[in-house]
């Protein structure tokens, strides 16, 4: 299944890349000149196009490329002439000139590794392009490459660059402080990007370009903040002497293969699309279903293209690290497998608890061994959540919430012996815990947390205390209180960031929506269970009827019918549990997760509030100073001045914090949306497959029954 997914997703991803690059190109080419009107229906069209492109691509692209319009030679010029002009005025200019050289230098570098091969291809193309702008076939080569890694990188980077260029004033701080390597990377990509422009033009998709254009030009402001944070983060890591590897681990969300930096950038570029994605799974629908599907598919590739980070990092990294990078690539694919098995009742009576076996399989070097297992109880999971939220939630991280504590269910388990409902409860909780843990480790930053590592590795954990308050109703109440408090604040906070404004609205709508859906699915589960029960009763009744029927053939047919109904009962039951485990639980998870997302927004608002409070305080202090000046009290003046500087520093600090948290939240939400789309897609497919299976069984049963019915004489 995943394989099936993978391939098409690659293709689609590829097209997205093309389109995006194309857009970027156009932007580069014309954004300084005259921005076209903002089209209304950019999104569907784009998606449609990218899809059609997939078909037309192999067939027509070459022929189209054969007839380059006079325009096709221009973009490169634009790239090489215009942007620099633009950039020269800002601090980035020197960075820009440097990378070019670097990339050039790298082209001839021989390579034995596959990654390098793949990687060098585009570069070769680059060189060709550079030497002759009328290259006929640079793109097909790329096309045929199974790995579009460099491209995706290209896709990710340019916008940043552009934005950076345009938003110099805001940007000024971070770039300066950013390390060489990151800037090199940027520049390198910009280089490649320029070439891709070329390709793009050969492709000639002008209408698309035009429609798409507003998109990147829309979000730059938003993107920018994110970029900034990225840049900030990276140098830290780099400075860290550990090694490149650790850096990868940190910057790259380990399980989900795109490197943190590049992916976030990609996100930045797509941020508008991402919005759509989030809804793709559940809310979309606004347009034709096809679009949604495409959106979904499109999300996946960006996640499942592990090559991207490798390529991007290899472009900047010395060749000796290539091996490590490759390692990292492979780890990206199956870095961490966590499964929870063997729920076991420990102890007796009301002190009894369920212990679960947590098995981890990993190739990450941060762990001591490749496979290990520990036994954990439910409160340990809650304790982990508590620790994580204490540490990370104020930074705007999205901490996956654990399943809620169910006193009723657990009491049943404690008291009841072997009863199917408590078995179901345990299985349900086991699955929920497993998903919870997988979500935790799939978070690039949380995975780095020592507590998580300890939770997975350490034999004995100190008993988690006071998890009671966090669980179940208490937890919900806490959340609700926070929400209420924040909703009051919302009125005060005038959201300047449209992205957040919309996103908060989206999240709220989606949560409501999911709740509604969840109720319905629950009712479906119940009805199916009821149906299963009734079918069983009917089957028995028919069997009785058959036994009292005095026509032999009819009697036989009736008992066959009873058997069929019996089997169908089984099917209904299975389907009911499928409804529950693949569908209902998914919704329940996401209702909880959306709550957590709201929590992130709350954190951001709190940061904003702090900042505003500090501003107000500063204002007051200034007024006080003015008063003192006026009253001519020099003795206190100095103190007031000190206070002002102190508050000024605080304001700057809080402002920075707010910006940082905004960036983090945005990144988290985008990541969340992506994961959600992927999760829903996967689960829905699983669910449909289960439906498919039961229909197949149904056909089998009735097929067998038909001759029996016909045999009645």
């Amino acid at each position: 299944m995943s394989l099936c997914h993978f391939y098409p997703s690659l293709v689609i991803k590829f097209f997205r890349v093309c389109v995006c690059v194309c857009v970027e190109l156009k932007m580069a080419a014309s954004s300084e000149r005259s921005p076209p009107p903002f089209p209304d229906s950019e999104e569907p069209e784009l998606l449609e196009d990218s899809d059609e492109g997939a078909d037309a691509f192999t067939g027509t692209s070459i022929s189209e490329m054969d007839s380059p319009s006079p325009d096709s030679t221009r973009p490169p010029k634009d790239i090489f002439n215009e942007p620099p002009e633009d950039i020269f005025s800002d601090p980035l200019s020197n960075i820009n000139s440097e990378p070019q050289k670097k990339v050039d230098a790298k082209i001839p570098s021989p390579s034995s590794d596959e990654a390098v091969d793949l990687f060098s291809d585009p570069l070769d193309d680059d060189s060709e392009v550079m030497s002759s702008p009328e290259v006929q076939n640079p793109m097909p080569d790329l096309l045929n490459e199974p790995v579009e890694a460099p491209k995706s990188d290209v896709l990710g980077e340019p916008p940043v660059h552009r934005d950076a260029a345009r938003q110099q004033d805001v940007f000024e701080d971070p770039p300066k402080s950013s390390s060489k390597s990151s800037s090199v990377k940027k520049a390198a990509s910009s280089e490649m990007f320029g070439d891709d422009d070329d390709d793009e033009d050969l492709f000639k998709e002008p209408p698309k370009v035009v429609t798409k254009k507003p998109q990147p030009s829309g979000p730059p402001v938003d993107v920018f903040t994110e970029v900034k944070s990225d840049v900030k983060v990276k140098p830290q890591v780099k400075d860290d002497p550990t090694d490149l590897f650790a850096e990868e681990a940190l910057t790259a969300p380990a399980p989900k293969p795109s490197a943190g930096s590049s992916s976030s950038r990609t996100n930045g570029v797509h941020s508008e699309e991402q919005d759509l994605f989030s809804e793709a799974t559940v809310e979309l629908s606004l347009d034709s279903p096809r679009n949604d599907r495409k959106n979904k598919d499109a999300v996946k590739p960006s996640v499942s293209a592990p090559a991207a980070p490798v390529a991007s990092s290899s472009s900047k990294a010395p060749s000796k690290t290539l091996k490590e990078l490759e390692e990292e690539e492979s780890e990206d694919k199956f870095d961490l497998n966590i499964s929870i098995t063997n729920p076991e009742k420990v102890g007796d009576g009301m002190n009894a608890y369920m212990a679960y076996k947590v098995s981890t399989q990993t190739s990450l070097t941060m762990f001591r061994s490749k496979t290990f297992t520990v036994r954990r109880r439910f409160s340990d999971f809650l304790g982990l959540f508590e620790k994580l939220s204490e540490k990370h939630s104020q930074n705007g991280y999205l901490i996956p919430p654990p399943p809620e504590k169910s006193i009723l269910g657990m009491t049943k388990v404690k008291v009841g012996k072997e009863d199917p409902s408590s078995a179901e409860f345990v299985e349900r909780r086991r699955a929920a815990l497993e998903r919870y843990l997988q979500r935790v480790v799939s978070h690039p930053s949380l995975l780095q947390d020592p507590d998580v590592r300890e939770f997975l590795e350490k034999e004995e954990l100190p008993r988690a205390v006071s998890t009671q308050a966090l669980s179940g109703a208490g937890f919900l109440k806490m959340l609700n209180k926070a929400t209420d408090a924040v909703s009051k604040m919302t009125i005060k906070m005038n959201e300047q960031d449209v992205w957040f404004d919309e996103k908060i609205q989206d999240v709220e709508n989606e949560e409501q929506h999911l709740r509604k859906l969840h109720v319905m699915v629950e009712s479906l589960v119940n009805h199916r269970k009821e149906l299963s029960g009734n079918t069983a009763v009917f089957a028995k009744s028919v069997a009785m009827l058959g036994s009292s029927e005095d026509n032999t053939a009819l009697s036989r047919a009736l008992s066959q019918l009873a058997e069929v109904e019996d089997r169908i009962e089984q099917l209904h039951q299975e389907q009911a549990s499928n409804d529950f485990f693949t569908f209902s639980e998914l919704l329940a998870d996401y209702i909880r997760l959306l709550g957590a997302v709201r929590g992130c927004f709350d954190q951001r608002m709190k940061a904003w509030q702090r900042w505003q409070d500090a501003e107000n305080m500063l204002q007051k202090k200034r007024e006080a100073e003015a008063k003192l000046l006026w009253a001519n009290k020099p003795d206190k003046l100095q103190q007031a001045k000190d206070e002002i500087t102190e508050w000024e520093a605080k304001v700057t600090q809080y402002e920075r914090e707010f910006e940082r948290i905004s960036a983090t939240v945005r990144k988290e939400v985008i990541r969340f949306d992506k994961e959600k789309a992927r999760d829903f897609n996967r689960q829905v497919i699983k669910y449909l497959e289960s439906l498919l299976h039961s229909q197949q069984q149904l056909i089998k049963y009735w097929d067998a029954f038909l001759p029996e019915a016909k045999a009645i004489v």
Partner: protein
Amino acid sequence: MVRHDEINKHKLQICKELNPRAVNVDLQTDATLQVDISDALSERDKVKFTVHTKSTLPNFKQNEFSVVRQHEEFIWLHDSFVENEEYAGYIIPPSPPRPDFDASREKLQKLGEGEGSMTKEEFTKMKQELEAEYLAIFKKTVAMHEVFLCRVAAHPVLRKDLNFHVFLEYNQDLSVRGKNKKEKLEDFFKNVVKSADGVLVAGVKDVDDFFEHEKTFLLEYHNRVKDSSAKSDRMIRSHKSAADDINRIASTLHSPLPLLFSNSQKIEARVAADEDLKLADLLKYYLRESQAAKDLLYRRGRALVDYENANKALDKARAKNKDVLQAETTQQVCCQKFEKISESAKQELIDFKTRRVAAFRKNLVELAELELKHAKGNLQLLQSCLGVLKGDT
């Protein structure tokens, strides 16, 4: 508010298209007398059936004619058969069930009230669903009434009944009134007496092995069919609510899935409807039919008891040598009655069995075929949807 007539008009049209009717009993067709319900109209709380007759029998004035009849008139016809001593030896075709639109009417009412609070799409969708439900009940009612008439028309004796002919031909209101309270009470007592008597009569050992066997069989069969019928109803009800859930999920989802879900709902709902039509209705019909057969056996048993009593009375009268002639006549009448009933009842019961087997065969085959058809449809739907989701691989 949703107007009833609006829906009824709709119904009317569709009813005309209702050609391959859901007649769930096999009947021998006889060209001399063919009866069908060509049309039906639902008005407020009544359903008006247009009964269409085609006949070459000499006692009808025309060869082809139609009259409008209501459910009460069907009941009247049925009761007149039951009350006629002449027909004591026959299985009287079970009367059609009362049309019951209350549930969907109520829903319709609610829909009308909730019109303001719903989006237009939701409203149209709900309305369509309700109409479909209403239509299904309507069709079923019509089919049941038609089956009753067809059974009568196909019966060698009952078809010659005068009341039946009046029912078919008289083109004005038969002005049958519903039973009043007193009559209903009487009916109730009659039923109580009858069932008590039935138990008594059933206890009497039959002289004829055939009837003895039929009696035990029918008693058991009737109970089992009753059980199955109730169970199938429950099963189908939960199936329908599951389908409703899927439908509601479909209306809440916004993605490529609603299409799948609403289609899947349609299929699921159709499965439930077909099960209803092919299985539950069959069982229900045979519930009533076996009741009618049981009634026949009761009448025969009653006649047998009467006959035996008359024999005893004759013996007594002879011993006392008093009223011998009167006792003899009574005994002879009872004997004749019993003989007559036994004779026709045997044939009727054999026919009943043949009819039953044929009907079960037909319905079970159709059920299996429909289930297969729906499952395959669903399978295809799922496959295509999965294909789409997986990216057309």
